Protein backbone atom coordinates (compact mmCIF):
# COMPACT_ATOMS: atom_id res chain seq x y z
CA UNK A 1 0.00 0.00 0.00
CA UNK A 2 2.85 2.39 0.81
CA UNK A 3 4.28 2.09 -2.69
CA UNK A 4 0.87 2.89 -4.13
CA UNK A 5 0.69 5.94 -1.90
CA UNK A 6 4.18 7.03 -2.94
CA UNK A 7 3.30 6.67 -6.59
CA UNK A 8 0.13 8.62 -6.05
CA UNK A 9 2.07 11.36 -4.31
CA UNK A 10 4.54 11.65 -7.14
CA UNK A 11 1.74 11.83 -9.66
CA UNK A 12 0.76 15.39 -8.79
CA UNK A 13 1.10 18.36 -6.48
CA UNK A 14 -2.51 18.01 -5.45
CA UNK A 15 -1.86 14.61 -3.93
CA UNK A 16 1.43 15.72 -2.49
CA UNK A 17 -0.37 18.32 -0.43
CA UNK A 18 -2.97 15.91 0.71
CA UNK A 19 -2.19 12.45 2.00
CA UNK A 20 -5.79 11.81 2.98
CA UNK A 21 -6.79 11.87 -0.68
CA UNK A 22 -4.77 8.68 -1.05
CA UNK A 23 -6.78 7.22 1.83
CA UNK A 24 -10.01 8.12 0.07
CA UNK A 25 -8.80 6.50 -3.14
CA UNK A 26 -7.87 3.31 -1.29
CA UNK A 27 -11.29 3.24 0.35
CA UNK A 28 -13.11 3.80 -2.95
CA UNK A 29 -11.12 1.08 -4.71
CA UNK A 30 -11.76 -1.36 -1.86
CA UNK A 31 -15.51 -0.68 -1.83
CA UNK A 32 -15.74 -0.93 -5.62
CA UNK A 33 -14.22 -4.40 -5.40
CA UNK A 34 -16.44 -5.45 -2.48
CA UNK A 35 -19.78 -4.14 -3.68
CA UNK A 36 -21.14 -3.90 -7.19
CA UNK A 37 -23.52 -1.17 -6.08
CA UNK A 38 -20.87 1.29 -4.92
CA UNK A 39 -19.41 2.80 -8.08
CA UNK A 40 -22.58 4.02 -9.75
CA UNK A 41 -23.57 7.61 -10.51
CA UNK A 42 -26.61 7.44 -8.24
CA UNK A 43 -24.64 6.07 -5.34
CA UNK A 44 -21.81 8.56 -5.71
CA UNK A 45 -24.36 11.39 -5.73
CA UNK A 46 -25.90 9.82 -2.61
CA UNK A 47 -22.49 9.89 -0.95
CA UNK A 48 -22.11 13.55 -1.93
CA UNK A 49 -25.47 14.42 -0.39
CA UNK A 50 -24.67 12.43 2.73
CA UNK A 51 -21.32 14.18 3.12
CA UNK A 52 -22.74 17.69 2.63
CA UNK A 53 -23.79 18.54 6.19
CA UNK A 54 -20.62 17.20 7.81
CA UNK A 55 -18.48 18.88 5.15
CA UNK A 56 -20.09 22.30 5.62
CA UNK A 57 -19.75 22.06 9.41
CA UNK A 58 -16.17 20.92 8.91
CA UNK A 59 -15.31 23.86 6.63
CA UNK A 60 -16.36 26.17 9.47
CA UNK A 61 -14.35 24.14 11.96
CA UNK A 62 -11.31 24.31 9.66
CA UNK A 63 -10.97 28.06 10.31
CA UNK A 64 -11.17 27.49 14.05
CA UNK A 65 -8.74 24.58 14.10
CA UNK A 66 -6.22 26.51 11.98
CA UNK A 67 -6.16 29.17 14.72
CA UNK A 68 -5.41 26.34 17.19
CA UNK A 69 -8.91 26.61 18.62
CA UNK A 70 -11.76 24.12 18.78
CA UNK A 71 -15.51 24.54 18.33
CA UNK A 72 -17.72 22.01 20.07
CA UNK A 73 -20.89 24.01 19.49
CA UNK A 74 -21.33 23.66 15.71
CA UNK A 75 -23.76 20.71 15.81
CA UNK A 76 -25.99 22.40 18.35
CA UNK A 77 -25.77 25.75 16.53
CA UNK A 78 -26.78 24.01 13.28
CA UNK A 79 -29.85 22.56 15.00
CA UNK A 80 -30.69 25.93 16.59
CA UNK A 81 -30.45 27.76 13.25
CA UNK A 82 -32.68 25.20 11.59
CA UNK A 83 -35.24 25.52 14.37
CA UNK A 84 -35.09 29.33 14.14
CA UNK A 85 -35.71 29.09 10.39
CA UNK A 86 -38.71 26.80 10.72
CA UNK A 87 -40.10 28.66 13.72
CA UNK A 88 -40.00 32.08 12.06
CA UNK A 89 -41.19 30.86 8.64
CA UNK A 90 -43.77 28.24 9.59
CA UNK A 91 -45.01 29.26 13.02
CA UNK A 92 -44.85 33.02 12.51
CA UNK A 93 -45.40 33.41 8.79
CA UNK A 94 -42.20 35.37 8.15
CA UNK A 95 -41.38 35.27 4.39
CA UNK A 96 -38.86 32.47 3.86
CA UNK A 97 -35.98 34.58 2.46
CA UNK A 98 -36.13 36.74 5.59
CA UNK A 99 -36.33 33.62 7.75
CA UNK A 100 -33.22 32.24 6.03
CA UNK A 101 -31.33 35.41 6.89
CA UNK A 102 -32.58 35.32 10.48
CA UNK A 103 -31.37 31.71 10.79
CA UNK A 104 -27.98 32.66 9.38
CA UNK A 105 -27.74 35.59 11.78
CA UNK A 106 -28.61 33.29 14.69
CA UNK A 107 -25.65 31.08 13.79
CA UNK A 108 -23.28 34.03 13.39
CA UNK A 109 -24.40 35.49 16.73
CA UNK A 110 -23.64 32.18 18.47
CA UNK A 111 -20.19 32.26 16.86
CA UNK A 112 -19.64 35.89 17.90
CA UNK A 113 -20.52 35.03 21.49
CA UNK A 114 -18.02 32.14 21.35
CA UNK A 115 -15.39 34.52 20.02
CA UNK A 116 -16.04 37.18 22.65
CA UNK A 117 -15.99 34.62 25.49
CA UNK A 118 -12.68 33.25 24.21
CA UNK A 119 -10.95 36.59 23.59
CA UNK A 120 -12.34 39.15 26.04
CA UNK A 121 -13.57 36.52 28.50
CA UNK A 122 -10.27 34.58 28.29
CA UNK A 123 -12.16 31.25 28.40
CA UNK A 124 -10.42 28.26 26.81
CA UNK A 125 -12.15 27.57 23.44
CA UNK A 126 -13.04 24.07 24.63
CA UNK A 127 -15.03 25.45 27.58
CA UNK A 128 -16.57 28.45 25.83
CA UNK A 129 -17.89 26.36 22.94
CA UNK A 130 -18.96 23.53 25.26
CA UNK A 131 -21.07 26.08 27.12
CA UNK A 132 -22.45 27.34 23.81
CA UNK A 133 -23.27 23.74 22.85
CA UNK A 134 -25.54 23.50 25.88
CA UNK A 135 -27.06 26.93 25.41
CA UNK A 136 -27.76 26.46 21.69
CA UNK A 137 -29.16 22.95 22.12
CA UNK A 138 -31.32 24.16 24.99
CA UNK A 139 -32.59 27.23 23.13
CA UNK A 140 -33.51 25.00 20.17
CA UNK A 141 -35.59 22.86 22.53
CA UNK A 142 -37.16 25.91 24.16
CA UNK A 143 -38.16 27.48 20.83
CA UNK A 144 -39.47 24.25 19.30
CA UNK A 145 -40.88 22.96 22.61
CA UNK A 146 -39.09 19.73 21.89
CA UNK A 147 -40.99 18.82 18.73
CA UNK A 148 -39.98 18.92 15.07
CA UNK A 149 -41.32 21.90 13.07
CA UNK A 150 -42.10 21.47 9.36
CA UNK A 151 -40.25 23.71 6.88
CA UNK A 152 -41.99 25.81 4.24
CA UNK A 153 -41.96 24.07 0.83
CA UNK A 154 -39.79 26.74 -0.78
CA UNK A 155 -36.96 26.00 1.67
CA UNK A 156 -37.48 22.24 1.55
CA UNK A 157 -36.56 22.41 -2.17
CA UNK A 158 -33.02 23.20 -1.03
CA UNK A 159 -32.78 19.55 -0.04
CA UNK A 160 -33.97 18.36 -3.45
CA UNK A 161 -32.33 18.05 -6.83
CA UNK A 162 -32.13 20.52 -9.70
CA UNK A 163 -33.55 18.63 -12.65
CA UNK A 164 -33.53 14.95 -11.87
CA UNK A 165 -29.89 14.51 -10.95
CA UNK A 166 -28.04 17.48 -9.48
CA UNK A 167 -28.59 17.56 -5.69
CA UNK A 168 -28.69 21.03 -4.16
CA UNK A 169 -26.86 19.95 -0.94
CA UNK A 170 -23.86 18.96 -3.07
CA UNK A 171 -23.90 22.33 -4.83
CA UNK A 172 -24.06 24.12 -1.48
CA UNK A 173 -21.20 21.95 -0.19
CA UNK A 174 -19.01 22.77 -3.17
CA UNK A 175 -19.86 26.47 -2.92
CA UNK A 176 -18.99 26.59 0.79
CA UNK A 177 -15.77 24.70 0.00
CA UNK A 178 -14.78 27.23 -2.65
CA UNK A 179 -15.56 30.07 -0.23
CA UNK A 180 -13.38 28.39 2.40
CA UNK A 181 -10.50 27.92 -0.06
CA UNK A 182 -10.71 31.57 -1.13
CA UNK A 183 -10.93 32.87 2.44
CA UNK A 184 -7.96 30.78 3.56
CA UNK A 185 -5.71 31.40 0.55
CA UNK A 186 -6.63 34.81 -0.78
CA UNK A 187 -7.79 37.00 2.09
CA UNK A 188 -6.20 38.86 4.96
CA UNK A 189 -8.53 37.05 7.39
CA UNK A 190 -7.34 33.66 6.12
CA UNK A 191 -3.65 34.51 6.38
CA UNK A 192 -4.07 35.84 9.90
CA UNK A 193 -5.72 32.54 10.90
CA UNK A 194 -2.58 30.63 9.92
CA UNK A 195 -0.41 33.25 11.65
CA UNK A 196 -2.41 33.06 14.89
CA UNK A 197 -2.39 29.26 14.84
CA UNK A 198 1.32 29.13 14.10
CA UNK A 199 2.32 31.44 16.91
CA UNK A 200 -0.22 33.69 18.54
CA UNK A 201 2.32 35.90 20.33
CA UNK A 202 4.34 36.40 17.14
CA UNK A 203 1.13 37.27 15.29
CA UNK A 204 0.26 39.85 17.94
CA UNK A 205 3.77 41.37 17.85
CA UNK A 206 3.67 41.60 14.08
CA UNK A 207 0.64 43.86 14.33
CA UNK A 208 -2.24 41.45 13.70
CA UNK A 209 -5.34 42.34 15.70
CA UNK A 210 -5.56 38.87 17.18
CA UNK A 211 -8.69 39.50 19.23
CA UNK A 212 -10.70 40.83 16.31
CA UNK A 213 -9.51 38.12 13.92
CA UNK A 214 -10.34 35.35 16.39
CA UNK A 215 -13.87 36.69 16.86
CA UNK A 216 -14.27 36.75 13.06
CA UNK A 217 -13.04 33.14 12.93
CA UNK A 218 -15.64 31.88 15.40
CA UNK A 219 -18.37 33.97 13.75
CA UNK A 220 -17.50 32.31 10.42
CA UNK A 221 -17.76 28.88 12.06
CA UNK A 222 -21.17 29.87 13.46
CA UNK A 223 -22.34 31.07 10.03
CA UNK A 224 -21.20 27.85 8.38
CA UNK A 225 -22.96 25.85 11.09
CA UNK A 226 -26.16 27.73 10.29
CA UNK A 227 -25.82 26.84 6.59
CA UNK A 228 -25.25 23.19 7.52
CA UNK A 229 -28.32 23.26 9.75
CA UNK A 230 -30.43 24.72 6.95
CA UNK A 231 -29.24 22.04 4.51
CA UNK A 232 -29.91 19.28 7.05
CA UNK A 233 -33.40 20.56 7.82
CA UNK A 234 -34.26 21.06 4.15
CA UNK A 235 -33.31 17.46 3.39
CA UNK A 236 -35.81 16.32 6.00
CA UNK A 237 -38.35 19.08 5.25
CA UNK A 238 -38.44 19.64 8.99
CA UNK A 239 -36.32 21.25 11.67
CA UNK A 240 -35.55 19.09 14.66
CA UNK A 241 -34.17 20.30 17.96
CA UNK A 242 -32.32 17.02 18.40
CA UNK A 243 -30.76 17.05 14.92
CA UNK A 244 -27.00 17.02 14.35
CA UNK A 245 -26.28 15.48 17.74
CA UNK A 246 -22.55 14.79 17.96
CA UNK A 247 -21.86 16.19 14.49
CA UNK A 248 -19.21 18.53 15.92
CA UNK A 249 -17.02 15.48 16.49
CA UNK A 250 -17.55 14.27 12.92
CA UNK A 251 -16.61 17.75 11.74
CA UNK A 252 -13.43 17.80 13.84
CA UNK A 253 -12.56 14.29 12.62
CA UNK A 254 -13.07 15.39 8.99
CA UNK A 255 -10.78 18.40 9.48
CA UNK A 256 -8.03 16.33 11.11
CA UNK A 257 -8.34 13.48 8.59
CA UNK A 258 -7.95 16.21 5.98
CA UNK A 259 -4.47 16.98 7.26
CA UNK A 260 -5.05 19.83 9.72
CA UNK A 261 -3.30 19.85 13.05
CA UNK A 262 -5.16 20.38 16.33
CA UNK A 263 -2.17 22.43 17.48
CA UNK A 264 -2.96 24.97 14.77
CA UNK A 265 -1.36 26.61 11.75
CA UNK A 266 -2.26 23.82 9.32
CA UNK A 267 -5.36 22.94 7.32
CA UNK A 268 -6.88 23.27 3.86
CA UNK A 269 -10.38 23.37 2.42
CA UNK A 270 -9.70 20.51 0.01
CA UNK A 271 -8.31 18.33 2.79
CA UNK A 272 -11.39 18.92 4.90
CA UNK A 273 -13.65 18.02 1.96
CA UNK A 274 -11.73 14.79 1.51
CA UNK A 275 -12.04 14.08 5.24
CA UNK A 276 -15.81 14.53 5.13
CA UNK A 277 -16.00 12.35 2.00
CA UNK A 278 -14.01 9.57 3.71
CA UNK A 279 -16.54 9.49 6.56
CA UNK A 280 -19.51 9.52 4.17
CA UNK A 281 -18.04 6.87 1.83
CA UNK A 282 -17.35 4.69 4.83
CA UNK A 283 -20.89 4.93 6.24
CA UNK A 284 -22.36 4.37 2.78
CA UNK A 285 -20.13 1.36 2.18
CA UNK A 286 -20.98 -0.20 5.54
CA UNK A 287 -24.67 0.02 4.64
CA UNK A 288 -24.15 -1.39 1.16
CA UNK A 289 -22.23 -4.31 2.62
CA UNK A 290 -24.85 -4.85 5.35
CA UNK A 291 -22.27 -4.76 8.13
CA UNK A 292 -23.74 -5.44 11.58
CA UNK A 293 -24.74 -2.54 13.81
CA UNK A 294 -22.15 -3.39 16.45
CA UNK A 295 -19.21 -3.58 14.07
CA UNK A 296 -19.95 -0.36 12.20
CA UNK A 297 -18.77 1.84 15.05
CA UNK A 298 -15.58 -0.21 15.40
CA UNK A 299 -14.81 0.09 11.71
CA UNK A 300 -15.45 3.86 11.65
CA UNK A 301 -13.11 4.34 14.62
CA UNK A 302 -10.37 2.24 13.07
CA UNK A 303 -10.58 4.02 9.71
CA UNK A 304 -10.39 7.47 11.34
CA UNK A 305 -7.23 6.38 13.14
CA UNK A 306 -5.76 4.81 9.98
CA UNK A 307 -6.48 7.86 7.83
CA UNK A 308 -4.66 10.21 10.19
CA UNK A 309 -1.85 7.69 10.68
CA UNK A 310 -1.37 7.45 6.92
CA UNK A 311 -1.07 11.22 6.70
CA UNK A 312 1.36 11.45 9.61
CA UNK A 313 3.58 8.74 8.11
CA UNK A 314 3.56 10.48 4.76
CA UNK A 315 4.62 13.75 6.35
CA UNK A 316 7.38 12.04 8.30
CA UNK A 317 8.70 10.45 5.08
CA UNK A 318 8.54 13.80 3.34
CA UNK A 319 10.72 15.42 5.99
Amino acid at each position, binding site marked *: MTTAVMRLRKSGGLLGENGSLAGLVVLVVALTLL*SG*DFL*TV*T*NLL*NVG*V*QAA*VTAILAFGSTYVIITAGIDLSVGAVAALSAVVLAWTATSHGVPWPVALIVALVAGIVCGLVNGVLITYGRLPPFIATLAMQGVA*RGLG*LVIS*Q*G*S*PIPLPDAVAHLGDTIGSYLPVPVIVMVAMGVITAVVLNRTYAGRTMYAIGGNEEAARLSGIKVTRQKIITYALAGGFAAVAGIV*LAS*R*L*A*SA*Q*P*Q*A*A*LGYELDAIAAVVIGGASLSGGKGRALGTLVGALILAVL*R*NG*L*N*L*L*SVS*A*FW*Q*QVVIGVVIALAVLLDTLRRRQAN
Partner: protein
Amino acid sequence: MRITKPVAIAAAAATLALGLAACRGGSSSGGDIKLGMSVSTLNNPYFVQFRQGAEEEAKKEGVKLTTTDAQNDASQQTNQVQNFTGQSMKAIILNPVDSDAAAPAVKAADRAKIPVIAADRGVNGASVAQTVASDNVAGGRLAAQQLGKALGGKGKVGVLQGTAGTSAARDRQQGFAEGIKAFPGIQVVAQQPADFDRAKGLDVLTNMVQANPGITGVFAANDEMALGGIKALGAKAGKQVKVVGFDGTPDGLKAVQMGTLSADVAQQPKLLGQLAVQSAVKAAKGDKVPVTVAVPVKVADKTNVAQFLNGS
Protein backbone atom coordinates in the same frame (compact mmCIF):
# COMPACT_ATOMS: atom_id res chain seq x y z
CA MET B 1 -11.43 42.39 37.95
CA ARG B 2 -11.16 42.74 41.74
CA ILE B 3 -14.07 40.42 42.48
CA THR B 4 -12.78 36.99 43.41
CA LYS B 5 -13.76 34.09 41.20
CA PRO B 6 -15.87 32.03 43.68
CA VAL B 7 -17.87 35.12 44.65
CA ALA B 8 -18.51 35.98 41.00
CA ILE B 9 -19.58 32.42 40.21
CA ALA B 10 -21.86 32.26 43.23
CA ALA B 11 -23.44 35.59 42.28
CA ALA B 12 -23.98 34.47 38.70
CA ALA B 13 -25.48 31.17 39.80
CA ALA B 14 -27.78 32.90 42.27
CA THR B 15 -28.96 35.37 39.62
CA LEU B 16 -29.63 32.56 37.18
CA ALA B 17 -31.48 30.49 39.76
CA LEU B 18 -33.63 33.47 40.76
CA GLY B 19 -34.39 34.21 37.13
CA LEU B 20 -35.41 30.62 36.42
CA ALA B 21 -37.49 30.49 39.59
CA ALA B 22 -39.29 33.63 38.45
CA CYS B 23 -39.99 31.99 35.07
CA ARG B 24 -41.77 29.13 36.78
CA GLY B 25 -44.17 31.48 38.54
CA GLY B 26 -47.50 30.19 39.77
CA SER B 27 -46.80 26.47 39.61
CA SER B 28 -45.61 26.48 43.21
CA SER B 29 -49.16 26.17 44.55
CA GLY B 30 -50.48 22.66 45.03
CA GLY B 31 -51.03 19.99 47.61
CA ASP B 32 -48.60 18.77 50.19
CA ILE B 33 -47.51 15.83 48.02
CA LYS B 34 -44.26 16.46 46.22
CA LEU B 35 -43.18 14.13 43.39
CA GLY B 36 -39.82 14.01 41.66
CA MET B 37 -39.47 12.76 38.09
CA SER B 38 -36.21 12.10 36.28
CA VAL B 39 -36.65 11.72 32.50
CA SER B 40 -33.93 9.98 30.51
CA THR B 41 -33.88 12.71 27.86
CA LEU B 42 -36.12 15.55 26.76
CA ASN B 43 -34.29 15.58 23.45
CA ASN B 44 -36.96 13.36 21.92
CA PRO B 45 -40.60 14.23 21.15
CA TYR B 46 -41.71 10.95 22.72
CA PHE B 47 -40.41 11.87 26.16
CA VAL B 48 -41.59 15.44 25.77
CA GLN B 49 -45.12 14.06 25.35
CA PHE B 50 -44.53 11.73 28.30
CA ARG B 51 -43.65 14.71 30.48
CA GLN B 52 -46.70 16.62 29.21
CA GLY B 53 -48.98 13.76 30.22
CA ALA B 54 -47.33 13.57 33.63
CA GLU B 55 -47.55 17.32 34.23
CA GLU B 56 -51.19 17.49 33.20
CA GLU B 57 -52.05 14.63 35.53
CA ALA B 58 -50.09 16.22 38.39
CA LYS B 59 -52.05 19.44 37.92
CA LYS B 60 -55.31 17.52 37.94
CA GLU B 61 -54.40 15.68 41.11
CA GLY B 62 -53.12 18.87 42.72
CA VAL B 63 -49.65 17.54 43.47
CA LYS B 64 -46.33 19.25 42.91
CA LEU B 65 -44.17 17.58 40.27
CA THR B 66 -40.51 18.45 39.78
CA THR B 67 -39.05 17.19 36.49
CA THR B 68 -35.37 16.82 35.71
CA ASP B 69 -33.68 15.87 32.44
CA ALA B 70 -30.87 13.30 32.73
CA GLN B 71 -29.69 14.02 29.15
CA ASN B 72 -29.17 10.29 28.56
CA ASP B 73 -26.44 10.22 31.18
CA ALA B 74 -26.96 7.45 33.73
CA SER B 75 -24.66 8.94 36.38
CA GLN B 76 -26.37 12.32 36.13
CA GLN B 77 -29.65 10.52 36.65
CA THR B 78 -28.35 8.83 39.81
CA ASN B 79 -27.41 12.25 41.19
CA GLN B 80 -30.85 13.60 40.35
CA VAL B 81 -32.60 10.76 42.17
CA GLN B 82 -30.31 11.22 45.16
CA ASN B 83 -31.19 14.90 45.20
CA PHE B 84 -34.87 13.97 45.17
CA THR B 85 -34.40 11.84 48.29
CA GLY B 86 -32.90 14.87 49.98
CA GLN B 87 -35.81 17.09 48.94
CA SER B 88 -38.41 15.11 50.90
CA MET B 89 -40.18 13.87 47.79
CA LYS B 90 -43.05 11.52 48.62
CA ALA B 91 -42.52 9.39 45.51
CA ILE B 92 -40.13 9.32 42.57
CA ILE B 93 -40.90 8.58 38.93
CA LEU B 94 -37.84 7.24 37.20
CA ASN B 95 -37.57 6.86 33.45
CA PRO B 96 -34.20 5.08 33.43
CA VAL B 97 -31.45 6.03 31.02
CA ASP B 98 -30.21 2.49 31.48
CA SER B 99 -32.07 -0.32 33.21
CA ASP B 100 -28.97 -1.72 34.92
CA ALA B 101 -27.34 1.57 35.88
CA ALA B 102 -30.53 2.77 37.58
CA ALA B 103 -30.31 0.16 40.37
CA PRO B 104 -28.06 2.13 42.78
CA ALA B 105 -30.33 5.16 42.58
CA VAL B 106 -33.41 3.04 43.29
CA LYS B 107 -31.68 1.41 46.27
CA ALA B 108 -30.83 4.86 47.66
CA ALA B 109 -34.49 5.84 47.38
CA ASP B 110 -35.51 2.57 49.04
CA ARG B 111 -33.24 3.33 52.00
CA ALA B 112 -34.97 6.71 52.34
CA LYS B 113 -38.32 4.82 52.21
CA ILE B 114 -39.42 6.65 49.08
CA PRO B 115 -41.38 4.54 46.58
CA VAL B 116 -40.06 4.53 42.98
CA ILE B 117 -42.21 4.12 39.88
CA ALA B 118 -40.18 3.01 36.86
CA ALA B 119 -41.58 4.41 33.62
CA ASP B 120 -41.11 3.24 30.03
CA ARG B 121 -38.12 1.06 30.95
CA GLY B 122 -37.71 -1.35 33.84
CA VAL B 123 -34.99 -1.40 36.50
CA ASN B 124 -32.76 -4.48 36.87
CA GLY B 125 -31.24 -5.46 40.19
CA ALA B 126 -33.44 -3.40 42.51
CA SER B 127 -37.12 -3.55 43.31
CA VAL B 128 -39.45 -0.71 42.39
CA ALA B 129 -43.02 -0.15 43.53
CA GLN B 130 -44.26 -0.38 39.96
CA THR B 131 -43.08 -0.54 36.36
CA VAL B 132 -45.24 1.25 33.79
CA ALA B 133 -44.17 0.54 30.23
CA SER B 134 -45.35 -0.16 26.73
CA ASP B 135 -44.73 -3.65 25.49
CA ASN B 136 -42.04 -3.20 22.84
CA VAL B 137 -41.82 -6.88 21.92
CA ALA B 138 -45.57 -7.08 21.34
CA GLY B 139 -45.30 -3.83 19.36
CA GLY B 140 -42.62 -5.34 17.14
CA ARG B 141 -44.86 -8.33 16.47
CA LEU B 142 -47.76 -6.04 15.60
CA ALA B 143 -45.53 -4.11 13.20
CA ALA B 144 -44.55 -7.35 11.46
CA GLN B 145 -48.22 -8.29 11.11
CA GLN B 146 -49.05 -4.90 9.61
CA LEU B 147 -46.17 -5.00 7.16
CA GLY B 148 -47.04 -8.59 6.17
CA LYS B 149 -50.63 -7.56 5.52
CA ALA B 150 -49.62 -4.47 3.53
CA LEU B 151 -47.32 -6.58 1.35
CA GLY B 152 -49.88 -9.29 0.77
CA GLY B 153 -47.62 -11.85 2.41
CA LYS B 154 -44.66 -11.65 0.05
CA GLY B 155 -41.74 -9.39 -0.80
CA LYS B 156 -38.30 -8.20 0.29
CA VAL B 157 -38.04 -6.21 3.49
CA GLY B 158 -35.41 -3.85 4.92
CA VAL B 159 -35.24 -2.99 8.61
CA LEU B 160 -34.04 0.32 10.10
CA GLN B 161 -32.84 -0.57 13.59
CA GLY B 162 -32.60 1.69 16.63
CA THR B 163 -29.44 2.65 18.50
CA ALA B 164 -27.36 -0.48 19.01
CA GLY B 165 -27.48 -1.74 22.58
CA THR B 166 -30.68 -0.01 23.75
CA SER B 167 -33.53 -2.10 25.11
CA ALA B 168 -36.12 -0.47 22.83
CA ALA B 169 -34.06 -1.31 19.74
CA ARG B 170 -33.51 -4.85 20.96
CA ASP B 171 -37.13 -5.57 21.97
CA ARG B 172 -38.71 -4.12 18.84
CA GLN B 173 -36.26 -6.00 16.64
CA GLN B 174 -36.98 -9.23 18.53
CA GLY B 175 -40.75 -8.79 18.26
CA PHE B 176 -40.49 -7.97 14.56
CA ALA B 177 -38.28 -10.98 13.84
CA GLU B 178 -40.77 -13.24 15.65
CA GLY B 179 -43.77 -11.73 13.91
CA ILE B 180 -42.37 -11.79 10.39
CA LYS B 181 -41.80 -15.57 10.63
CA ALA B 182 -45.56 -15.97 10.14
CA PHE B 183 -45.04 -14.81 6.54
CA PRO B 184 -42.82 -17.36 4.78
CA GLY B 185 -43.08 -15.36 1.54
CA ILE B 186 -41.36 -12.36 3.12
CA GLN B 187 -37.61 -12.19 3.19
CA VAL B 188 -35.65 -9.73 5.36
CA VAL B 189 -32.81 -8.75 3.03
CA ALA B 190 -31.08 -6.05 5.08
CA GLN B 191 -31.09 -4.66 8.60
CA GLN B 192 -29.01 -1.65 9.46
CA PRO B 193 -28.87 0.77 12.41
CA ALA B 194 -30.02 4.37 11.96
CA ASP B 195 -29.88 5.29 15.65
CA PHE B 196 -33.53 6.41 15.98
CA ASP B 197 -32.52 9.53 14.01
CA ARG B 198 -34.40 11.03 11.06
CA ALA B 199 -31.38 12.20 9.07
CA LYS B 200 -29.67 8.85 9.56
CA GLY B 201 -32.86 7.03 8.53
CA LEU B 202 -32.78 8.99 5.27
CA ASP B 203 -29.13 8.18 4.55
CA VAL B 204 -29.23 4.54 5.63
CA LEU B 205 -32.35 3.66 3.66
CA THR B 206 -30.96 5.44 0.58
CA ASN B 207 -27.89 3.21 0.82
CA MET B 208 -29.93 0.10 1.59
CA VAL B 209 -32.13 0.57 -1.48
CA GLN B 210 -29.00 1.14 -3.53
CA ALA B 211 -27.74 -2.30 -2.52
CA ASN B 212 -31.18 -4.00 -2.61
CA PRO B 213 -33.28 -2.33 -5.31
CA GLY B 214 -35.99 -4.97 -4.91
CA ILE B 215 -37.07 -3.85 -1.42
CA THR B 216 -40.86 -3.54 -1.22
CA GLY B 217 -41.29 -3.16 2.53
CA VAL B 218 -39.54 -1.30 5.34
CA PHE B 219 -39.89 -1.62 9.09
CA ALA B 220 -38.43 1.31 11.03
CA ALA B 221 -38.06 0.84 14.79
CA ASN B 222 -39.23 4.41 15.42
CA ASP B 223 -41.14 7.11 13.57
CA GLU B 224 -38.17 9.43 13.19
CA MET B 225 -36.29 6.82 11.14
CA ALA B 226 -39.48 5.93 9.26
CA LEU B 227 -39.95 9.58 8.26
CA GLY B 228 -36.35 9.80 7.09
CA GLY B 229 -36.85 6.58 5.15
CA ILE B 230 -40.00 7.95 3.51
CA LYS B 231 -37.92 10.95 2.37
CA ALA B 232 -35.42 8.52 0.85
CA LEU B 233 -38.15 6.62 -1.00
CA GLY B 234 -39.77 9.78 -2.36
CA ALA B 235 -42.85 9.07 -4.47
CA LYS B 236 -42.46 5.31 -3.95
CA ALA B 237 -43.31 5.54 -0.24
CA GLY B 238 -46.72 4.03 0.46
CA LYS B 239 -47.06 2.88 -3.17
CA GLN B 240 -44.35 0.50 -4.43
CA VAL B 241 -42.71 0.39 -1.01
CA LYS B 242 -44.75 0.01 2.20
CA VAL B 243 -43.31 1.50 5.38
CA VAL B 244 -44.34 0.65 8.94
CA GLY B 245 -43.20 2.85 11.82
CA PHE B 246 -43.24 2.71 15.61
CA ASP B 247 -44.11 5.29 18.33
CA GLY B 248 -47.14 7.20 17.01
CA THR B 249 -45.57 10.68 17.19
CA PRO B 250 -47.66 13.51 15.70
CA ASP B 251 -45.44 13.61 12.57
CA GLY B 252 -45.70 9.84 12.17
CA LEU B 253 -49.48 9.91 12.42
CA LYS B 254 -49.64 12.71 9.85
CA ALA B 255 -47.63 10.49 7.48
CA VAL B 256 -50.17 7.71 8.05
CA GLN B 257 -52.92 10.15 7.15
CA MET B 258 -51.08 11.09 3.95
CA GLY B 259 -50.61 7.43 3.09
CA THR B 260 -46.79 7.48 2.95
CA LEU B 261 -46.64 5.45 6.16
CA SER B 262 -48.78 2.33 5.82
CA ALA B 263 -49.17 1.74 9.54
CA ASP B 264 -47.76 3.05 12.78
CA VAL B 265 -47.52 1.08 16.01
CA ALA B 266 -48.55 3.83 18.36
CA GLN B 267 -47.32 4.02 21.89
CA GLN B 268 -49.17 6.34 24.17
CA PRO B 269 -46.54 8.46 25.89
CA LYS B 270 -49.06 10.89 27.37
CA LEU B 271 -51.07 8.03 28.85
CA LEU B 272 -47.80 6.56 30.12
CA GLY B 273 -47.03 9.85 31.89
CA GLN B 274 -50.55 10.06 33.33
CA LEU B 275 -50.49 6.48 34.65
CA ALA B 276 -47.04 6.99 36.16
CA VAL B 277 -48.22 10.04 38.11
CA GLN B 278 -51.43 8.31 39.23
CA SER B 279 -49.43 5.39 40.59
CA ALA B 280 -46.85 7.68 42.18
CA VAL B 281 -49.60 9.58 44.03
CA LYS B 282 -51.13 6.31 45.26
CA ALA B 283 -47.73 5.01 46.36
CA ALA B 284 -46.99 8.32 48.09
CA LYS B 285 -50.19 7.96 50.11
CA GLY B 286 -49.06 4.47 51.13
CA ASP B 287 -51.64 2.63 49.01
CA LYS B 288 -50.78 -0.64 47.31
CA VAL B 289 -50.03 -0.45 43.58
CA PRO B 290 -49.78 -3.34 41.11
CA VAL B 291 -46.23 -4.36 40.27
CA THR B 292 -46.59 -3.84 36.53
CA VAL B 293 -48.86 -1.78 34.32
CA ALA B 294 -48.64 -2.42 30.59
CA VAL B 295 -49.59 0.59 28.53
CA PRO B 296 -51.25 -0.83 25.44
CA VAL B 297 -49.74 -0.23 22.01
CA LYS B 298 -52.21 0.34 19.20
CA VAL B 299 -51.98 0.18 15.47
CA ALA B 300 -52.79 3.38 13.64
CA ASP B 301 -53.60 2.98 9.97
CA LYS B 302 -55.53 5.01 7.45
CA THR B 303 -58.90 3.86 8.78
CA ASN B 304 -58.45 5.04 12.36
CA VAL B 305 -55.67 7.63 12.27
CA ALA B 306 -58.02 10.59 12.68
CA GLN B 307 -58.94 9.24 16.11
CA PHE B 308 -55.26 9.25 17.17
CA LEU B 309 -54.61 12.72 15.81
CA ASN B 310 -57.60 14.11 17.69
CA GLY B 311 -56.52 12.30 20.82
CA SER B 312 -52.99 13.72 20.95
